[in-house]
């Protein structure tokens, strides 16, 4: 592959086959230290920690809720609720890994949901195919993401501000278009496809699984994913290595916009409505899920598995609280505590690393 260059150095180039191909030491296997702290420093260990947290939550659910928690329908409810925010969180994992942030995800979901349920869109859908609605939601999501991406990457507006403006603008536009009225879906084909079950599993949950799987592959197994990590970890080094950092940053926001479009479709199918109030505070839930999942807010490290577990933890927590008739407010307090604890743990581990 690169024989001429290695040969000039004048050292024998051992055949790569000399190394046992199965020798795949984990990235941190050569570090000193041990115990739980060491385990939590590895990606697998961190995910294991999240799984343990989720199991503990489930045990708490079974103990306090009994059959009401362990019921298959309840589990499917948790998964259906997790699916929508989960798709947004997967997209957000990319933006945060790439060194950005997006506060406008909830507003983009609202605008997409409204746009794909307007009378005009629904008439088109009924006359032709329900895919018109899908196209509308995805196109609106991607367009919003494109605006965010252009403002951040080329306009050099800090992501916090650019997406804050989008938050205000997109939700406002959604209110104008819908006239603040809830738009009922009258396209039976759309609902019957997206709000159906396949082999007992809701289509929404399958969609979430598919998006998460694609996200994992893209982040871990493609050049796009590698570049995302590079751009988030050290944008200057990435640029000097020949990566088109601005363009890549823009793509990340478009990708997230698309995910918001998918989430909007799922929400519209689940509620059979489009509304400018859809997706309210999704930005907080999504950022929280991404962060407790182990993705660094400063960029350069992201984990899709962690994000999925983060989403499941928060959704299960809500469910356990609801089954125990605890208020939404109490849920919020506990969520806040979990976020703080997760970030403190992250920071201490990061500090030990250096």
């Amino acid at each position, binding site marked *: *592959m*690169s024989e*001429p*260059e*290695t040969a*000039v*150095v*004048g*050292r024998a*180039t*051992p055949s*790569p086959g000399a*190394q046992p*191909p199965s020798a*795949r*030491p*984990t*990235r*941190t*296997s*050569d*570090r000193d230290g041990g115990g739980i702290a060491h385990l939590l420093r590895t990606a697998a260990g961190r995910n294991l920690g999240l799984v343990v947290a989720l199991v503990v939550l489930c045990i708490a659910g079974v103990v306090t809720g009994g059959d009401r928690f362990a019921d298959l329908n309840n589990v499917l409810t948790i998964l259906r609720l997790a699916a929508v925010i989960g798709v947004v969180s997967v997209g957000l994992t990319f933006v945060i890994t790439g060194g950005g942030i997006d506060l406008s995800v909830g507003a983009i979901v609202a605008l997409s949901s409204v746009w794909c349920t307007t009378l005009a869109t629904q008439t088109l859908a009924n006359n032709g195919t329900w895919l018109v609605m899908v196209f509308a939601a995805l196109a609106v999501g991607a367009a919003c993401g494109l605006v965010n991406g252009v403002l951040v990457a080329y306009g050099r507006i800090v992501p916090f501000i650019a997406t804050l403006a989008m938050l205000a603008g997109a939700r406002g536009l959604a209110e104008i278009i819908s006239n603040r009225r809830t738009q009922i879906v009258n396209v039976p084909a759309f609902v019957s496809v997206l709000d159906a079950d396949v082999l007992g599993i809701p289509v929404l949950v399958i969609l979430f699984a598919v998006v998460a799987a694609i996200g994992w*592959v893209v982040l871990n*197994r*493609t*050049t*796009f*994913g*590698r*570049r995302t*990590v*590079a751009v988030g*970890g*050290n944008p*200057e*080094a*990435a*640029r*000097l*290595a*020949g*990566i*088109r950092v601005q363009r890549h940053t823009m793509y990340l926001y478009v990708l997230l916009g698309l995910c918001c479009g998918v989430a909007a479709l799922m929400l519209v199918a689940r509620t059979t409505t489009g509304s400018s109030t859809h997706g309210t505070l999704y930005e907080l839930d999504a950022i929280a899920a991404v962060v407790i999942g182990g993705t660094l807010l400063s960029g*350069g*490290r992201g984990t899709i598995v962690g994000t999925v577990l983060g989403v499941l933890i928060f959704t299960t927590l809500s469910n356990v609280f609801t089954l125990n008739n605890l208020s939404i407010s109490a849920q919020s307090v506990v969520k806040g505590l979990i976020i703080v604890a997760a970030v403190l743990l992250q920071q201490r581990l990061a500090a030990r690393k*250096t």
Partner: protein
Amino acid sequence: MTIGPNDPSPPAYEGAPPLLEMRGILKRFPGVLALGGVDLTVRAAEVHCLLGQNGAGKSTLIKVLSGSYQPDGGEIRWEGRPVTFPTPIAAIKVGISTIYQELDLVADLSVTENIFLGHELSTAGFTQRGRASSRARELLARMGHTGIGVHRSVGSLSPASQQIVSMARALSHDTRLLILDEPSAVLDSGEVENLFRVVRGLVAQGVAVVYISHRLEEIRQIGDRISVLKDGSSVATDLPVSETPTRELIRLMTGRSIEYVFPPRTQEPSADAAPVLEVVGLERKGLFEPVTFSVRAGEILGLAGLVGAGRSEVVETLYGARRATAGTVRVNGRAMPNGSVAARVAAGVGLCPEERKSQGLLLDESVSSNITISTLQRFSKAGFLDHAAERVAAREMTESLDVRPAGVDRAVRTLSGGNQQKVVLARWLLRECKVLLLDEPTRGVDIGARTEIYTLVRALADSGVAVVVVSSEVEEVLGLSDRVLVMREGAVVHEAPASALDEAQVLDLVMEGAPA
């Protein structure tokens, strides 16, 4: 030449211990020995100049002295008594104040508020505005700067005035040792004169000053004694300014302490070979004047000059990392779009940047990802990476360059400077680039690894790569290059084959006008 009023040195230190003594200071960072036994002795009422190139360890030493970093070894004595500074506050309390290059003022607060920031004059929590203002006026007057209004917001002041405010803040702490980190970098010549007046005034009042700069002519004007750092070690301490020739100082700053071994120039690149890299009239206003040069396949071109002469800027501009104000860059005859690194990389140009950690590497990523980051296309099918192929290629590279410790999954952060540099080189070797730009390729690299890097660069040239090397070390430029461009103050002042130049000539050229 003006010599400070405090020259010859005041006899105050006779008998009494020096104000500050640092002995054998060690500071390690992961994989790097930043300070390997540094000594510094400062006496009351003297201006002690600390000299050294970027990366020599000056900033680290100051941070140890000001309590920002904890040393891993060595001893600090203050007036003869051993001390430690666990926090910056502890250093300020004994009377050490530091004024960093980036002034740490709050732009939207007033002059008075900045001077007393963190130690506001107050009664029961209420600030004493009147008393603070008059104290601020006193402090400014002590430096002869009554013209700065104490109620103005600091952001509205010129950089020179801001620096005075910083110094007033230092003095508000009853400072006995003032550290000035490259204070003249933001000033024009008139303002520098003014700064010197202030410094001399403070010294006359018994304050000791550690003055950091690499402008040697300033040190001549303001300094009493000089200590020189190189690669994290003291190479000279307590040199009297008046008796040390400038050339000797440059030799100490840039010179070898051990003989480097340069590979022989194996073959003269044929004069009629087509140039791979052509730079015509490249200019970046304010940084460097138009430069024109070309490099042929197999040739190593050296850019010599002091830090700040514009060498790195030329290389960064021709690489597209900075936009040029005029001029063209052609690679293999193809004109490169202004300001596009990606186009250069696509055309086969690679850069090993000056700041390896902040510009060259993804420190938390593995050796393997750092090596393949510019070659990802080669390891992917339809965007999907072939991790196994990537790791095999990276391992071949690390083995042929002898990167230690072996293992391509190790985070690059854990490697020493020399091995990190090899990783950056491996990235471009893997890409089989046609033009390789090396900015200070051996900074922070130990002697053994240096020789390996020199050998590698020569071998690359022999295989047909056009190489441009920027270095502050004159013997490195001369030993490694075929042809040398000498830069001074943003302009190319000389061009010659390396074999036609000797170290003394180049030193004269980079320093022209300074007393020998």
